[in-house]
């Protein structure tokens, strides 16, 4: 391993060893997305109307509340991975990339926490 050119410094080290994990998690969460979002869209179609009473009485049941909570987790996880790929493609400055990825992590956790709090509040009848 040389220490002159930038290619010389990384030659022989192989990949960063994180790519395949990221790729697999994108697929695993995608499977979860298919199950939960298709259930969600089908449920919207099966609701007789979208009045507060109708939607509220549907979500407070344990199974819809659980699936909605799981949908929030799996879709946000998937969105977090997908947006990271977009950021890595378009933000080339190392410092800028760090800031944007850090912000993405925070927004993802805030969104997930808020969504789950809403579902729990509804399910427990607050």
């Amino acid at each position: 391993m040389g220490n002159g050119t930038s290619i010389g410094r990384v030659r022989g080290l192989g990949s960063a060893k994180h790519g395949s994990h990221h790729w697999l998690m994108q697929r695993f969460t995608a499977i979860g997305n298919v199950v939960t979002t298709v259930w969600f869209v089908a449920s919207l179609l099966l609701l007789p109307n979208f009045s507060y009473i109708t939607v509220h009485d549907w979500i407070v049941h344990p199974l819809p509340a659980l699936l909605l909570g799981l949908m929030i987790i799996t879709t946000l996880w998937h969105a977090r991975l997908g947006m990271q790929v977009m950021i890595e493609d378009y933000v080339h400055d190392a410092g800028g990339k760090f800031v944007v990825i850090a912000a993405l992590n925070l927004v993802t956790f805030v969104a997930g926490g808020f969504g789950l709090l809403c579902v729990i509040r509804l399910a427990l009848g607050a």
Partner: protein
Amino acid sequence: MAVSILHRVSGNGLAVVGTATLLCWLGALASGPDAYAKFVALAVTIPGRVVLVGLSWAFFTHLASGIRHFVLDIGAGFELEANAFWSVVTPISAILLTAAFWAALLLR
């Protein structure tokens, strides 16, 4: 290539606008009937309808091209003709599913 671009655009659109809309809806629902009425009043405006139709299109587009990704991931569908055929079927099926979704919703 167009399907790849559509996959990225619809995916990131869903990640930002889809998440925001879902959380507004859930937040309004958890806050009570008054907040929920405000959400519905906003959703039925023309811009609100454009966002909802756009989100449903992005959802079916990302779903269709995502399923195409699953097939390509197992190593199938790389033959030139099959690949070109399904790259056309993917966005068209998404538009048809979006139309079917709104037809089912409005005609129920």
